[in-house]
């Protein structure tokens, strides 16, 4: 239930099909978990030993009382020394119980939590290693819940499971042995009372697990209904639909109440059975015990100890049914986590991967690609292009034609289905990840910001970079002053998704990241125009500084950008249709030339710039976007 405490994701508690696990699977999960626990073996055995000690001290209490009654307080055998000795032993046992309990709590937590800490790190490292195609498929919410809801479920197991397992198991076994030794006859009679409670516990365990999952599901539904109503409150009020929204919410709210009440009914039926079993057992022990005392088959002390022991017999049965649910829930969680861990990255580093050379030609050689393996429909078909060092190539074409995909292949976000991408003669697929990232940087269009300061955001790739180096990078692209001018300079915290920085400033951060990385090849999703007029020129300058001396692949959305590139490639329908300098292509009279004509035609008549000419080939270009004197200098 920890997930309810606040923070993101109100609907993460939703129940998934994977929350149910069968027995064979449970076995595999347990084995694998134990393998993962191996590094924590020493701590675990220590914790186990302390736990056993603690449990033994717990059982010792009634035994001592029983002994004192038998040997010091039974008529005829009064003995003050026995009483004093018993009390002293009891005192020592009680104090050591306290000490052991403290040790047990701390040790169990340390061992369990270091396992979970490792697991968190491992799962996250694995997520990071997965390829882009995985992230294209997977929903953010599901991935996040692997690291939150599922690990929380394990947390419960770690916190309570091991303790319950050992103490309850040991108590139960210990008490049974002791009872059997003290008085086999009385023991057998006592056992008669147990079957009903075992049956009731099993039934309760099964039903309450279902009820618990149901309650969790209902809670998350109520909360997401509430969330939706709050987000859409303006529409609701505008159309006067408050009442039907309320009725909708009441349904969910009522369903949550019903689910809770059902769960309560289950426990209100079960716990009285436990309590009654206790009394019934007491009655049986007293009744039959008196008979045995009368027959001189047992002593009063033993009967007393039996009565006092009863709690230790019944509690574990109760606890075990709880443990079973815990194990089941964490089993489901582990299954989902393992499922994620078993996902292989589709782009991975080969054994014996080599470093990319410092400089070289970027060559795309007869590359074909599809996002889903084995799919016949290709996003790119047989594309080849050679980009010389320090050359600038602009890729243009309609949305979805494949220009972004081509750019991503050049940075090895994906591996081509056929053909190769190489840099300086080394196939990217044979190169180390770190050298690919060092040589080839991708600047995404949206300057995505992370929680933290501007400084941290710029040194995203390596948080050990010094502030001086960051400043140097900012200076290279000429925006040091701009960030220094902010209230807290580079230490300014950028909040959620960078709401405090303008789009232009976010892009400057993104460009500064690239400047800091100092790559040979820069892959740009054109960034020059998504801006507030204030920062436009600054971003322009930063880009110019950044591109100097580097190989640049730019996904161009504006013809002005294409015009300035050394060469232009027109990508459409998965193929590279035209490739050449701006002048060549205009002269050639093909696709590019048509776009260009449309653009300058627009330009002349309305003095405006047409932005995404991506849609131009479909006919409806511009639609009279009205602007005066807004032409980008070219």
């Amino acid at each position, binding site marked *: 239930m920890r997930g309810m405490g*606040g923070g993101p994701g109100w609907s993460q508690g939703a129940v998934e099909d994977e929350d149910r696990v069968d027995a064979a699977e449970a076995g595999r999960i347990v084995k694998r978990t134990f393998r993962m626990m191996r590094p924590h073996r020493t701590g675990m055995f220590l914790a186990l030993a302390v736990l056993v000690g603690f449990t033994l001290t717990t059982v010792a209490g009634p035994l001592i009382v029983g002994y*004192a*009654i038998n040997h010091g*307080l*039974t008529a005829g055998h009064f*003995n*003050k020394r026995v*009483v004093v000795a018993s*009390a002293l032993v*009891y005192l020592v046992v*009680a104090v050591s*119980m*306290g000490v052991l309990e*403290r040790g047990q709590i701390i040790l169990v937590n340390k061992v369990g*939590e270091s396992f979970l800490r490792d697991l968190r*790190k491992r799962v996250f490292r694995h997520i*990071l*290693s997965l390829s882009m195609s995985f992230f*294209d498929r997977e929903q953010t919410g599901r991935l*996040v819940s692997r*690291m*939150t809801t599922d690990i929380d479920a394990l947390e419960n197991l770690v916190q309570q499971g091991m303790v319950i397992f050992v103490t309850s198991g040991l108590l139960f076994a210990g008490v049974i042995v002791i009872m059997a030794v003290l008085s086999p006859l009385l023991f057998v009679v006592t056992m008669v009372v147990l079957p009903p409670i075992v049956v009731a516990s099993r039934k309760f365990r099964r039903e309450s697990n279902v009820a618990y999952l149901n309650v969790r599901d209902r809670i998350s539904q109520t909360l*997401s209904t*509430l969330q939706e*109503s709050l987000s859409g409150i*303006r529409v609701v*009020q*505008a159309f*006067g639909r408050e009442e*039907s929204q309320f009725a909708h919410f*009441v349904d969910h*709210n009522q369903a949550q*109440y019903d689910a809770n*009440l059902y769960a*309560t009914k289950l426990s*209100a039926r079960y*716990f*009285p059975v436990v*309590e*009654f079993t206790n*009394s*019934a057992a*007491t*009655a049986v022990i007293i*009744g039959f015990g008196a008979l045995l005392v009368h027959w001189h088959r047992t002593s*009063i002390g033993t009967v*007393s100890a039996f009565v*006092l022991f009863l709690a230790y017999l019944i509690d574990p049965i109760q606890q075990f049914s709880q443990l079973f649910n815990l194990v089941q829930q964490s089993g489901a969680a582990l299954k989902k986590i393992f499922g994620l861990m078993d996902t292989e990255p589709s782009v991975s580093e080969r054994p014996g991967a080599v470093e990319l050379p410092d400089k070289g030609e970027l060559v795309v050689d007869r590359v074909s690609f599809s996002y889903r393996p084995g799919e016949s429909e290709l996003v790119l078909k047989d594309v080849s292009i050679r980009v010389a060092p320090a050359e600038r190539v602009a890729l243009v074409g309609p949305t979805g034609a494949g220009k972004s*995909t081509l750019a991503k292949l050049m940075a090895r976000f994906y591996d081509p289905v056929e053909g190769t991408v190489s840099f300086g003669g080394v196939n990217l697929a044979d190169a180390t990840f770190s050298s690919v990232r060092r040589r080839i940087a991708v600047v995404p*269009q949206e300057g995505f910001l*992370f929680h933290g300061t501007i400084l941290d955001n710029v040194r995203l790739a*390596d948080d050990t970079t010094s502030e001086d180096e960051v400043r140097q990078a900012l200076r290279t692209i000429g925006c040091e002053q701009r960030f220094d001018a902010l209230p807290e300079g580079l230490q300014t915290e950028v909040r959620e998704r960078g709401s405090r920085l303008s789009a232009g400033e976010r892009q400057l951060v993104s460009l500064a990241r690239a400047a800091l990385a100092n790559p040979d090849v820069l892959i740009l999703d054109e960034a020059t125009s*998504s801006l*507030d007029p204030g920062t436009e020129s600054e971003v322009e300058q930063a880009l110019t500084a950044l591109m100097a001396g580097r190989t640049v692949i730019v996904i161009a959305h504006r013809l002005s950008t294409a015009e300035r590139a050394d060469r232009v490639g027109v990508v459409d329908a998965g193929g590279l249709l035209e490739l050449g300098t701006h002048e060549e292509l205009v002269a050639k009279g093909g696709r590019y030339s048509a776009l260009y004509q449309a653009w300058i035609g627009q330009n002349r008549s309305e003095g405006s710039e047409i*932005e995404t000419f991506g849609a*131009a080939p479909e006919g409806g270009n511009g*639609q009279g*976007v*009205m602007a*005066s004197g807004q032409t980008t200098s070219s």
Partner: protein
Amino acid sequence: MFLGVGAGMLWSGIRVFIPTLTGGAIDKDMANGWHPASLLFYAGAILVLGALSSTCSGFRRYLAFKVSYAVETDLRQAMFANLQELDFQYHDRAQTGQLMARAATDLQQINQLCTMIPITIANLLTVVLVSVFLLVIDWKLGLLALCCLPIVNVTAKAFSTRVHPVSMALQQDISNISTVVEETVTGIRAVKGFGAEGSQHRQLSGRADRVYDRIVHLARIRGLFQPMLDVIPAISMVAVLAYGGFLVIDHRIQVGQLVEFNLFITMLINPLRSLGQIIAQAQRAVASSERVSQILDALPEVADRPGARSLSPGPGEVRFDGVRFAYSKEGNPIFDGLDLVVAPGESVAVVGATGSGKTTLARLIPRFYEVDGGGVLLDGQDVRDLKVADLRRAVAVVFEDTFLFTETVAANIAFAEPGAAFERIERAAQLAGADSFIAELPDGYDTVLGERGFSLSGGQRQRIALARAILADPRVLILDDATSSVDANKEHEIRDALRQVMTDRTTIVIAHRPATISLAQRVVLLDEGRIAATGTHDELVATCSRYREVLAQAAALDAARTELRNELDEVPS
């Protein structure tokens, strides 16, 4: 609630006799010879009382939980009802996340306190009864047994108070972890593009370490208090065993009474612990209920006035009569005496720079906000004198950010009238130019949309929102920048739909694209809350330099937005 308390008191009243019976049986029937009748009585009584008390316990549990879940459910319902009534002014300020936390965490705290009330009363009774029993049997032994136990209570309270802030901090630490994961996954392009896997992993490691440290801290606190809570009663037992043993030897009490004492002490441990916990829980619940009542007590500024009238039929004339308005008492006024008349059936485009007041103007008509002076009149009737439901039924708004509910396409379109016939839904969709893409959706009109459903493009969402307004068949239609989230080069797709809808209907269009503006018969240029110019689009372009300026700025911003969207759309499906 009283039933629950009653059942609880009965439960503890019965329960306290069982140790006495047990002790009595040991003394009468084992230590002092063989008395089958009395033995049968004792065993039988234990059995009967056990059955009674456990039945009461079941009822106590059921009733207590039932009442507190009912309280939680009612409170949540009341909260929701009030949130629905609260006006735009309130929701502009409130944060969804905060409100969600009230509905979840705070209500849970209150629920937990409610659950604890009957058992607490029962526990108090148990403590009192057991104490009396102990003191009656032997007051010295009783005092000895009881003197340790108040410490249990104090310790339990201190425990709960110490643990709470740390576990709250732990919650925060854990949610910090999910922030890193969420950001990394959402910003995976930036992470992969710059090779930031290593530093992201270090970030997460740092936070995972923090969680570990916090839990170990928590374990240290528990490791201090939990043993105390277990050892103190045990010491009580030791004292009882030693002193009680002497009393038995001195024939002052009997052996069975000693066992009885032990059983009584066991019976006291849990009640005393939970009494300590409930004090801490009550403090938390009070803080929670204060936060919840803040929501429940908030009053909507916009509500039906006493004697509010129904809207009488009319052609749909909208009149702003010397309207004054500011978003807050201290803030600058948006309007200071605005006059504007929109004739029945007329379509007017409102154009203005950011902050000129054009959206505010539109939102005053359906009375989303209350004017400070002057009046907004619909067909000659002041909107403040009308029933809100009538007014909003007559005025439909299409917002800039279209919100779709997690419902089917049909239900989203028929939002204003859930019972609308399918033909009407279909026709509204046709008019909005949405029918063709709806037909291509996986389940057509039955496709579930919204945050948790099928996601549509901006233009498609906009057309659904338009269909929603068309189905409402309003007297006045307001398009609040409704086309701006559609790419300029795709806007023509919905322009025909707009033209259809606007025919013969009073329409106020807030827009900045010339193509959309020119759909309206008249243009009003709004500048700093005043009407700076009015005329047709062509007239204003020709004569008004400020108009040209505003449009040029808007176009630049628009271009920027389109770029951004294109990139976002270019995700492989």
